C-alpha cells in the first residue's frame, strides 16, 4: 500500500518544486507548456493502461482526444442566441444548461454550459468507444493496430472536412471551464499558476485511479490477458469484456484530456486528431516501458514539454517517429526499466553480451 502511494507524493513534490523553480527564476511562462503537457499526460497514462497492461495496441487515441475536444468546443463556442426562441433551446435554458457571456465586441453570446458539454462529450466517447472497440478488439497484433489506425484516420478526415467544426481552421473562442471553488480551466495568464496545479492535480488523480486498478483483481486479470489470453479464459476471466472495458476507459481518459486542453487553449484544430499524434502517444508509452505507468508519465512530461517548447523545431513528428524506431530496435522494454543499469554496464564494457538477453 505504501509503495503504491509514496511515488505519488514524490511526484506531487516534483510538480510543486517545478512551479517554485519557475517562480524564483522569473520564468513562469514555462508553466503554460507544462500545463498543456499535463493534459496530454492524462491521455498517455490511460493509453499506457491499454497498451502496456492489457496488451492491446491503439493507433487511434488522438481520435478520442479529438472527439472529446471537438464536442466540448462545438457546444460551448456555438452561439445559440439567434435561435433563442426555438423549443429545444428554451428547454435547455430552463434546465440551467445554458450560460451567457460577452463576446469580444460587447455583444452577448448564449452557449451550452461547459459542464453539460463535458458530460455530453464523455458520454459520446463511451458510446463510440464501445461501438468501435466491440468489433475491433477481436483482432490482434498488427490487425488491431491497423484497425485502430483506420479509426483515427476517419475521425481526422471528419473533423477536417466538416464545415460546422471549422474544417481546417478548427474551433476557436472556446470559453474557460469553471471548476469548483472559483477554479477555472482557462489560458488567462493571470490564472497560470492555478491552472498548472489544476492540470497536474487531474493527472495525479488519474494516476491514483490507475495505480489502484493495476493492483486490483481487474488489474491482474488485464495483465493475465496480455500474457496468455486463452489461459486467462480458462480460469474464468471474460477476456473480451475486459479488453473492451479497458479500451473504453482509456478512451475516456483521452477524451477528458481533449476536453480540458481545448478549454485551456481556447480552441482545437484538426491536427489534434492527426495520425502522427496517435503515433506520438504510442511512442511515449513505448519509451516509458509499456507496462510502466510512472515511466510513461515521466517520459510524457519530458517529451511533451520539449515538443511544446519547440525544441524539436520543424522535425517534431520526425523526432517521435525516430524515437519509436529506436526504442523498438534497441530497448523494446522502454528506457526506464529494471535492468537499465546492468544493460548500460554491458553496453559500455563492450562485447556482444547484449545479445544474450534476447
Amino acid at each position, binding site marked *: 500500500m505504501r509503495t503504491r502511494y509514496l511515488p505519488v507524493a514524490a511526484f506531487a513534490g516534483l510538480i510543486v518544486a517545478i512551479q517554485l523553480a519557475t517562480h524564483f527564476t522569473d520564468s513562469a511562462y514555462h508553466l503554460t507548456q507544462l500545463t498543456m503537457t499535463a493534459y496530454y499526460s492524462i491521455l498517455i497514462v490511460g493509453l499506457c493502461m491499454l497498451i502496456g497492461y492489457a496488451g492491446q495496441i491503439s493507433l487511434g487515441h488522438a481520435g478520442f482526444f479529438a472527439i472529446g475536444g471537438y464536442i466540448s468546443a462545438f457546444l460551448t463556442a456555438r452561439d445559440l442566441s439567434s435561435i433563442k426562441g426555438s423549443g429545444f433551446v428554451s428547454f435547455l435554458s430552463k434546465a440551467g444548461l445554458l450560460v451567457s457571456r460577452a463576446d469580444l465586441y460587447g455583444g452577448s453570446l448564449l452557449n451550452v454550459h461547459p459542464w453539460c458539454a463535458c458530460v455530453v462529450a464523455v458520454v459520446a466517447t463511451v458510446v463510440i468507444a464501445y461501438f468501435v472497440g466491440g468489433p475491433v478488439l477481436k483482432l490482434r497484433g498488427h490487425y488491431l493496430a491497423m484497425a485502430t489506425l483506420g479509426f483515427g484516420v476517419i475521425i481526422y478526415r471528419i473533423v477536417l472536412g466538416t464545415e460546422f467544426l471549422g474544417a481546417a481552421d478548427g474551433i476557436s473562442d472556446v470559453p474557460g471551464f469553471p471548476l469548483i471553488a472559483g477554479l477555472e480551466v482557462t489560458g488567462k495568464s493571470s490564472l497560470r499558476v492555478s491552472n498548472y496545479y489544476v492540470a497536474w492535480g487531474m493527472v495525479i488523480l488519474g494516476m491514483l485511479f*490507475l495505480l489502484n486498478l493495476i493492483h486490483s*483483481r481487474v488489474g491482474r486479470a488485464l495483465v*493475465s490477458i496480455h*500474457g496468455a489470453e486463452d*489461459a486467462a*479464459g*480458462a480460469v*474464468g476471466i471474460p477476456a473480451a469484456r475486459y479488453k473492451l472495458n*479497458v479500451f473504453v476507459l482509456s478512451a475516456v481518459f483521452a477524451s477528458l484530456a481533449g476536453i480540458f486542453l481545448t478549454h485551456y487553449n481556447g480552441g482545437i484544430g484538426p491536427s489534434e486528431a492527426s495520425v502522427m499524434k496517435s503515433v506520438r502517444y504510442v511512442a511515449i508509452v513505448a519509451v516509458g516501458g509499456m507496462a510502466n505507468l510512472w515511466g510513461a508519465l515521466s517520459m510524457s512530461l519530458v517529451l511533451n514539454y520539449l515538443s511544446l517548447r519547440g525544441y524539436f523545431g520543424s522535425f517534431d513528428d520526425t523526432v517521435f517517429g525516430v524515437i519509436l524506431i529506436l526504442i523498438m530496435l534497441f530497448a523494446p522494454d522502454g528506457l526506464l526499466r529494471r535492468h537499465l543499469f546492468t544493460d548500460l554496464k554491458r553496453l559500455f564494457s563492450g562485447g556482444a553480451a547484449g545479445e544474450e538477453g534476447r
Partner: protein
Amino acid sequence: MTLLSVRDVSKRFGGLQAVSGLSFDVVQGSIKALIGPNGAGKTTLFNLVSGMLDPDTGEIFFRGEAVQELSSHEIAGRGLVRTFQHIRLFPKMTALENIMVGRHVHSKAGFIAGMLNLPFTWKEERRIREKSFEIMELLGIADHAQVEATSLSYGQQRVVEIGRALACEPQLLLLDEPAAGLNMRETNEMGELIAKIRDMGITVLLVEHDMSLVMKISDEIVVLSYGQKIAEDRPLSIQKNPEVIRVYLGDEQ
C-alpha cells in the same frame, strides 16, 4: 453421480475428423484418464469440453447442464477448469500472482471498485492473497511465491499452473499431460499430487502419455484412436484389451 457427460460429440477440421461420435461419462470423485496415440483427438476433446472449441455435433453436460455452447470463461465459472499441455503461465507476474488470478471467479471487485480502491476490496484482496498462499503451501511451492513464475523450473511451473487451476476451486479439473517433460521423481510426485487433489473432493480428467502413471492413479481409462473411443474400462482390463494392444503396438504381421 455423473459429473461430466460427453454425448456423441464430433469435431472436424477441414478434411480431418478429429473427434467422431464420442461418448463417455466422468463419475464424481474419480480420476479418469484419456489415452491414445498421438493425433487420437485427446487435446481436441479437452478443447471441446473446456469451451475453447465448439463441437460440430453432440452435447456436453456438466452437472446436468448443457455447456457445449458456452465460452471457456463461463465454463470455468461453473467449476470446470483446465491446464495446458504446453504450460501457459502469465509472464511478468510472480508465482503467487499467477495463482491469485485463479481466484478471479470467487471475487467481485470490478473496474470502478478497483480504481477507487473501495474498502470492501481490501478484505477481498487479503482473502485472495491468503487463499492463494495456502494453495502454494499445500502444493509445497510456497518458497517460490515471490519469484517470477516463468523463471521457475519446468516441474515447478507445472505445479504453479495446477495451483492456479485449484485456486478456482473446481469441481472437475482437466489436466493435459501433467507429467510431460518431468523426470521420474517429479512424475511420481505429480502422481501423488493428483491423488491428493482427488482426495480433496475434486474430480480429475487427464490426458497422459506416461502409462505407469496412468495405470497407477486412474480409476477408469478411455482409449481413443483416430477420434473414436475403442475402449473404456478399469486399468487392469485396459492392459489386457487386444484392441488397445493392437492400436499401441501394431498388428502381428
